[in-house]
């Protein structure tokens, strides 16, 4: 249960990128570009480079990375869960 790092790329983002492999239950220090940090708890494993939710996200709500919309939640997501194709989808076809 050692503390892991994740990178938030924009202050408005509701997700961060794992800077190392994160295991279920790990405390995660989320580091913003300006050096600010916040701590969350991973509720499931998030491999290096994959996305972790920073807040609860309702089904259909927008996902923000780089301060931009990268898609929406295809099912409800809770803070600390991994975000990927199983619970998120793009909006461009």
């Amino acid at each position: 249960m050692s503390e892991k790092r994740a990178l938030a790329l924009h202050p408005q983002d509701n997700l961060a990128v794992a800077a190392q492999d994160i295991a279920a239950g790990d405390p995660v220090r989320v580091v913003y570009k300006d050096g600010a940090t916040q701590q969350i708890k991973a509720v499931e494993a998030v491999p290096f480079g994959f996305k972790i939710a920073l807040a609860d996200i309702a089904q259909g709500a927008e996902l923000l990375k780089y301060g931009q919309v990268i898609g929406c939640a295809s099912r409800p997501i809770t803070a600390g869960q991994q975000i990927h194709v199983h619970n998120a989808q793009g909006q461009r076809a």
Partner: protein
Amino acid sequence: MSFLGYPRPDGSYGTRNYVLVLPGGLVSSKICQFVDGVRTIITPDYGGGRTQRDRQTVARVLVGLGRNPNVAGVILHGLHPAMQYPELKPAVLAQQIAASGKPVEVITAQPFRDTYEVLVRGIKAARRLVCEASHVRRQETGDEHLCLGVKCGVSDSTSGIAGNPAVGYLYDQVVAAGGTAMFGETTEIIGAEHLLAQRAASPEVAQRILAVSHDIEEKSKGYGQDIRTVNPIPANIEAGITTLEEKSLGAIAKAGSTPIQGVLAYGERPAGKGLYFVDNWMSMNSIFLGYAASGANLTLMVWGGGGYVADTILYPSLGVVAPLLWTTGNVNTYRACEESMDFCAGTVIDGSETLGQAGDRLLALVRQVASGSFTKTDTLSFQEANKVYFQDAAF
């Protein structure tokens, strides 16, 4: 002084000093085997059975490769039947290449002369031109004579936060010094095109960026395809990229932050210096050839890879005459194929380097390669086939 380049009559500087024989095919390949220092293109895309628009693209690629600063002299022959289309006639291509002031020799303009005779004459001409090229000496010059092209491949989420931003930093430095930098991959700006349009140097350029992005999305729909089933590719998804928008937002980081001066067609030469968007296809077999035809004297690949190694990492330059420098933002990928990767920006993610520090390291490496240092894949003799980016159906 930033690098040592080969001065050319048109004022450009080469990072390499090749003789080029065109078009590709058996005779040209044999000339390359016989004479050291000669390059040719390997592709079935001669232009036969193609629309006029697509044949013009082939012509643009052949002329552009010939005019590339890394080429000291050019040999043309007309042995392939496609070379009899008006826009592909050897004399027509030769005239356009010769406008750059470099020596151009047309071995035969005829389609079906004796192949063996053309081979012998080609070998003799190549030996003569290689000797002539060897008299050119590298001279000190500046970053304003760098002309770069970039592609990101098998992107993972390190690409958008380390690999591509490091190239973006490099591009900002080169553009600030008066150089030229190109990026492209039209399907991979979908979802980020509004951000690029905001950076256009004029309203016309902004409109053009939005138009090419819209067109490729509509083209995909016209074929009954959901572009999301084409891109992101499975390897992207396995490596943590979820949506096309996410991939695009990471991809445009390689364009840095300077204004976009124009939108170029595949193989089109930029009218001026600065940052250009090229409306091209993401395939590595196609994109680097296009950049070289647009005048790139050095190209970069930003590999994500998700830590796994593909044999494509061993592809040498697909720009035929423009060296290819392999970079990654993923430390796991770098460790897995260090003997093939030239640069790693993964330090930005683990916090051991700032983006500026990693970017400065990349700029120094680019200047070294531009001065003649080999990239790791420069040591390989394998030549992968190229594909010309066509717009129309085959007939």
